[in-house]
């Protein structure tokens, strides 16, 4: 509080906040600098790009699930509907989209199987089971099931 006729003495000059400095000003502290994070932060490192692609792969998974539902609906509506579905699927655009979706699905599956040994710390007699013994059987099952589906489709 200032007394009459006496201006309050400033302890130290308060920095005038400018457009650049205002958001980083921290009250009662030295002014910390908070580095801004760019929208494209993930482009700076291959591991981050891989991570973003893996996150994006969920869109491909959703697309494939939706496509499967549409396919089941077409089958349930009879031969004509299914022929129309197959015709739509044979368009170059659809084939291109599905090739991309397939690539993302592979990425999704492989990163998922590789994650499993990280999440499962199985110990037998005090020794941690090596990751390959956890992810290996999953890859084997994946290959086996894929082979069975291929066999059914090709020998139909």
């Amino acid at each position: 509080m200032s007394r009459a006729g006496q201006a309050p003495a400033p302890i130290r000059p308060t920095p005038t906040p400018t457009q650049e400095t205002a958001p980083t000003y921290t009250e009662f502290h030295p002014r910390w600098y908070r580095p801004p994070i760019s929208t494209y932060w993930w482009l700076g490192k291959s591991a981050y790009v891989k991570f973003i692609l893996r996150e994006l792969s969920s869109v491909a998974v959703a697309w494939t699930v939706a496509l499967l539902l549409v396919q089941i609906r077409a089958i349930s509506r009879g031969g004509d509907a299914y022929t129309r579905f197959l015709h739509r699927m044979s368009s170059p655009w659809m084939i291109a989209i599905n090739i991309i979706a397939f690539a993302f699905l592979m990425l999704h599956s492989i990163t998922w199987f590789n994650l499993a040994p990280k999440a499962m710390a199985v110990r037998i007699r005090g020794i941690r089971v090596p990751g390959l013994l956890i992810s290996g059987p999953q890859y084997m099952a994946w290959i086996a099931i894929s082979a069975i589906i291929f066999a059914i489709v090709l020998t139909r």
Partner: protein
Amino acid sequence: MNIPMIEMQVARYSPERDAQPYLQRFEVPVKPEWVILDALNYIKDKLDGTLTFRWSCRMGICGSCGYMVNNEPKLGCATFLSQYLPGPIKIEPLSNFPVVRDLVVEISEFLEKLKRVKPWLIHENGNGAGEYLQTPSQLEEFRQHSMCINCLLCYAACPISGLDPVFIGPAALALAQRYNKDSRDQGAEERMAILSHPEGIWGCTFVGECTKVCPKHVDPAGAIQQYKLAAAMEGIKQFLMPWGQRQEER
């Protein structure tokens, strides 16, 4: 003997003077036994005494000298200068933290997060009530996660820590798991309240970089994924057998 020189670009920031950090160049001799920290001390002693950085033990124990070295989080005392020849080497403060000055970052937010996961033994008899015996295999369960030196390299590597400041983050979550896995501890349920929150384990999207940069091989990413699995199993168990759960509580 002719000692090679290397250019170091060191981030400078004075809160009173600069609106944002800038890089200052220094020429530093590369002695074969020198690490990044030796080079910074050389700059401070011989070239510019105003350079500010944290360091203490110079042997990978205190966790003070974490910097971004060519955009990778590294311990200054454990990173040889010669591996960056012919240079230049860019040294910046750890990412995802506010900068106080030059290479010094503000870590009080982390210390608050650390406290929230209760990284200490919780036992119904209280602590210090006597000895708690532990077998070597029980020790082995959590030993890896107990090696953390709080150097915060994992926070600098974790993009989620930068994008979502409320995320508890790798080191604190790994330390929580270290106590959860300790046979002497009974606090897993108490910690579950904070860990199973979206700010806790579910904030982690498993980028995995925390584990890659950890100088002590603590594997925070692994600890978090293991805890996710345990929390999910617990959730399923409670959903399928709510009666069994109640009996346990009685």
